């Protein structure tokens, strides 16, 4: 039983990270109807920036904040420079652009930092908190950080004029433009926020999976599964989906299919959800008029 509780709790910890990344995917999906295949690599690249800052002697939390700001800027720049010109292009063209971003960020990181695996510090103490035996402090801390990020995003979208403007753009870009909202900049800001949330996820997962340019491949897959499970256009759903996928992955990996097939859980979930319930559990069902 103890082992089971341990599996569930550490599943919740990684689940929180999947939830953050899934949330980043959903934020971009909501404003552009696109799934950003480069989300994981953007997070990975930001995490490397954090590593550089910390290695240069900066404290963890200042480096954390600076990295989040950097990711925000990175997201905005990528949207303005790379995505904007293909806004109305075919799905294939856009997917190709995302893949291009993925491989460029991946290889740029490999080029700058080399492909050797690096350790990434955790800001939380080594000993488990409160003397418990189920969950390490980093895992507990990661869940905490995820919840703080979610709360901040909720407050931002719910209570600030800028958040309201962004929600308006996601709902109806034409009308938003008519009432004077800068739709283009809102899209860019949406990308920036998504990149920032992704960067937090990257910095939280890096102490667990270690820092390496390919670290996000599998995690992105779980985030896809989480976003689809919760409904790709539902932020709340993505968060619940993230935690669910984290627990499911850990428990299935430990007791049913073995650790060497964990990624197939994501594959099965993605295909299963798309087939049985494409709108996920909390998403809107889309009806297309012929």
């Amino acid at each position, binding site marked *: 039983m103890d082992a089971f509780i341990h599996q569930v709790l550490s599943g919740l910890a990684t689940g929180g990270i999947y939830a953050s990344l899934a949330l980043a995917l959903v934020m971009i999906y909501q404003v552009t109807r*696109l*799934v950003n*295949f480069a989300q994981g690599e953007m997070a990975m690249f930001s995490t490397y920036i954090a590593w550089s800052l910390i290695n240069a002697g900066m404290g963890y939390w200042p480096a954390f904040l600076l990295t989040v700001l950097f990711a925000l800027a990175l997201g905005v720049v990528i949207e303005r420079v*790379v995505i904007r*010109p*293909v806004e109305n*292009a075919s*799905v*294939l*063209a856009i*997917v*190709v*652009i995302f*893949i*291009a*971003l*993925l*491989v*460029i960020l*991946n*290889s*740029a*990181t*490999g*080029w700058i930092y080399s*492909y050797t695996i690096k350790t990434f510090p955790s800001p939380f103490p080594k000993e488990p908190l409160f003397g418990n035996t189920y969950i390490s402090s980093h895992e507990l801390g990661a869940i905490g950080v995820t919840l703080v990020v979610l709360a901040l995003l909720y407050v931002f979208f719910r209570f600030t004029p800028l958040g309201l403007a962004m929600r308006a753009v996601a709902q109806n870009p034409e009308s938003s433009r008519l009432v004077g909202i800068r739709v283009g900049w809102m899209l860019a800001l949406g990308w920036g926020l998504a990149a920032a949330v992704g960067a937090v996820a990257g910095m939280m997962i890096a102490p667990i999976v270690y820092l390496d340019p390919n670290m996000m*491949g*599998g995690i992105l*897959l779980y985030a*896809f*599964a989480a976003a*689809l499970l919760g409904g790709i256009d539902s932020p709340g759903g993505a968060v619940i989906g993230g935690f669910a996928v984290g627990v499911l992955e850990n428990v299935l990996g430990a007791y049913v299919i*073995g650790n*060497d*097939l*964990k*990624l*197939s859980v*994501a*594959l099965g979930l*993605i*295909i299963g959800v*798309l*087939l049985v319930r*494409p709108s996920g559990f909390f998403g809107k069902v889309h009806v297309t008029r*012929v």
Partner: protein
Amino acid sequence: MTRRASIAVAVLVAIACVLPFVVSNYRTFQLTLVLVYAIALLGLNILTGYNGQISLGHGAFYAIGAYTAAVLMDRLGAPYWATIPAAGAVCLVAGFLFGLPALRLEGLYLALATFALGVSMPQLLKYHHLEKWTGGVQGIVIAKPEPPAFLREAGLQMNSDQWLYFFALAVAAIMFVLGWNLLRGRVGRALIAIRDQHIAAEAMGINNALYKSLAFGVSAMYTGIAGALGAIAVQYVAPDSFTIFLSLVFLVGIVVGGLASISGALYGALFIQFVPNVADEISKAAPWAIFGLFLIGFVYLMPAGVAGAVRTLLVRFTRKGAK
């Protein structure tokens, strides 16, 4: 085919037959891989270029083909040439089966599902219950095929690299003729109609579901055959040679070569074989940086790829000549 096109193909075949006798063994080996990639790219192009179904996971079918060939040769002692049709058949079925659920997925979602397939393929290949067949992480080493005895009796001296090249050339030629026949007629038009206007295509009496899943099957078959040939050429299969980046290489190939174009498969194959070779000298990361930049560059500036550019140039050139 127009007369000019026939002459071009004849010249190309003649050059392809002479090349291995002029260049080094290593270059011959690289050219064999070009042929292998060309078959795989033609397969992906049938699906993504002609039929508009985005696949980011074709490396998985390449892997299945390669493993089929390796397992048949290493564990069951099958002759290398017999593994090609076997790999094709296995992948046809695998592709068709994956294509059935894929029918319900459009555009982005299909890209997602195939991406997931591509990412999880190495792990599936490492699965410990299959280790008896697949060799687990170690993979399988296979023997290099020797040129057949009748060639030596006929007085033709050929080393195994050259023989393998001609074997690949023959397979590629068959696959390209088949592909050309498939795409120029009724089936090709149906595939394109589904890509451009699937509702109108349905109204015209095209069975969308059948054609789409068939396109998936045939596409996987091409890629699987390429995989089997590739495995024989490099004499080695291992799970980590079939990561998601292999699938992405194929995507680079069809985008650079030209979507929905048969000759594009050849340009794309030359690109993905030789550009990394040159770029590798700069840095280990350079090939992918260059691939990425080319992807963006081609989508922005040359969406029809090299094949499209060649076509435009030819039209301009001949118009000038006519005046």
